[in-house]
């Protein structure tokens, strides 16, 4: 009876299984020296990546100072006595393997760690010389804004996404006309104005992923912050959108101090002027991007950027 015929079963032909071949051996990129990387434009290991810089940083204004910062969750240290400056005019990248505390460090810069009940903080962070613990969280977070990993525009129009930031807390006051200019300016700075200027009332969640993320950057810029925090802003995006956002980051460094957390070493190399490498809560190495990627002084940094772990 055809009805009862058993389904076909795929059987493995174990006798003729293909043998696994060993991958051709590659030389450790860090061991090859002077391999066509003339002019010092790209250190070894990242020879294929181009730095997206317009040039060396033109200015360097200290904005934030992290001083012996430690953050603990339920008594377990996630960030251990990290000290580091954050300067306008330069892009600072935080790199390191997952769970090394880089996102926690970033979130403590605008006191978002306080939303986690178990988090406790020690040390000092100053913004333009003022301890951020002495600032109102809401006003601090307007001066130190943040862009998240997932594009998360609010479920309203493109215009309202930005107007929401400018308006008083929950109010709807502030006419469209009076807010039009600052909104358009922020969209322009985020490189989104050309694409959305015809229809500012377009629902934000209907934009593409890359546009949504640039809208989030515009939203973070509209309050005219002093520091912009980016938490892996490109990890949910395609290469084209990533490229646009990286160009944008390099452009923005003149106006705001930019701190970017990234998993992607090439990305850090492409955009950053200064890099902090974190591992298990410790800041292992901090220094100029060229030096850190070219001649790291710590062994663990060397191992990490050559793909030894992480």
């Amino acid at each position, binding site marked *: 009876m*055809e*009805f*009862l*015929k*058993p*389904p076909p079963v795929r*059987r*493995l*032909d*174990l*006798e003729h299984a293909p043998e696994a071949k060993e991958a051709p051996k590659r030389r450790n990129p860090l061991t090859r020296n002077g391999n066509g990387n003339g002019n010092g434009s790209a250190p070894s290991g990242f020879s294929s990546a181009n730095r997206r810089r317009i040039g060396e940083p033109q200015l360097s204004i200290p904005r934030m100072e992290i001083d012996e910062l430690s953050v603990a969750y339920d008594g377990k240290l996630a960030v251990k006595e990290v000290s580091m400056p954050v300067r306008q005019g330069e892009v600072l990248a935080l790199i390191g393997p997952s769970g090394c505390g880089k996102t926690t460090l970033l979130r403590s810069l*605008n006191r*978002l760690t306080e*939303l986690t009940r178990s988090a406790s903080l020690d040390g000092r962070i100053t913004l333009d010389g003022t301890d951020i613990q002495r600032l109102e*969280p*809401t*006003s*601090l*977070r*307007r001066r130190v*804004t*943040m862009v*998240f*990993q*997932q*594009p*998360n525009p*609010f*479920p*309203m129009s493109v215009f309202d996404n930005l107007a*929401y*930031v400018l308006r008083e*807390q*929950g109010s709807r006051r502030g006419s469209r006309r009076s807010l039009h200019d600052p909104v358009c300016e922020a969209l322009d700075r985020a490189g989104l104005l050309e694409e959305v200027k015809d229809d500012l009332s377009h*629902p934000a*969640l*209907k934009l593409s*992923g890359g546009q949504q993320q640039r809208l*989030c950057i515009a*939203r*973070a810029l509209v*309050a005219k912050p002093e520091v912009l925090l980016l938490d892996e802003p490109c990890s*949910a995006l395609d290469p084209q959108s990533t490229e646009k956002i990286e160009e944008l980051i390099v452009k923005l460094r003149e106006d705001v101090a930019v701190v970017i957390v990234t998993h992607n070493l090439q990305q850090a190399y492409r955009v950053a002027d200064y890099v902090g490498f974190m591992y298990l809560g410790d800041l292992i190495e901090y220094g100029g991007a060229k030096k850190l990627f070219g001649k790291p002084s710590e062994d663990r940094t060397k191992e990490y950027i050559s793909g030894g772990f992480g």
Partner: protein
Amino acid sequence: MSPVATKPPVEPPKQAPEPKFEAVESAGAWRLSDRIGLVICWMFGLLFCAIAAAIVIYLLIQGIKYVRPDVMFSSPKVGFTEADTGGFLDPLIGTLIIGAMGIAIALPVGVGIAVWLSEFGRPFALARIVESTVEMIAGTPSIVLALFGTVIFSSTALSFLSRSSEGVVFGRSFFAAGIMISLVALPLVVSSTREGLQAIPQHVREASYAVGKTKIATVRRILLPSARPSVATGTMLGLGRIIGDTAIIVVLLGALQNFEKTGSPFPLNYLQGAGSTLTNYVYANAPTGELNNPQKAYAAAFVLLVFVLILNAAVDLVHRQSRKAGSWNS
């Protein structure tokens, strides 16, 4: 031959029929018990559809036979034949009043509880207590709520909510029934709103905090608008429960057929007085009821059913709309 692989059948099936390239799995290859189970599932599914269709079609036929404009626009009267007993204008308006009152209370209270549970919820022990209280109300039979209501609304402190004479508070009124019946809808509003709020990713809240917004502003401008489809769904499900409830109406609305006004000024005289709703009317006019006018009962039941079907369609519409609006789950 390796020990892992079993030997394939040596004989290929004779005269193989035309090879079928179907992507879907055929139940023909299942075990017998599985196939019997499948047949049983189908049977129950069809049976359920048949029952639902029978109810709707039967009431549709009966309803269309008996629903006349004069039935819907005249008040119930006492009469010896069905032709003399008037219509059900009073119960129809009563249903609308009770529905509006119940939702007017359940919606803000329910949304408030849901927001507090989902966004604030501290101290933790209190949140747990509130949560189980709401669950308990959801599981309480409405007749128990009604019985409890008679005790509360007969107290002299609440005499302004119903008719009273010579110091005795009647305790049955639209106020009493509407307040008590809101408890029937409340758990549905709470659970639906909570689900909607919890479906919003945490990073969306943080994005709002990260531009310097307070928790209240975030709830008002981001979270509640995002959860609006869920709130609407809960409201409509609650409204469906309210207009379908009979026990609270019979016990707390006086089990009358007509409005019985008090001497207060206009809206209050109806709301403080007793009355009736469609469920109560059907209950009284069913063949086993005290009035026994089955034709009128069918007509009223038909109107009630139309209300419920409209609500279901509205829930469906809201869901389809919200799916179209897009979300963060990319």
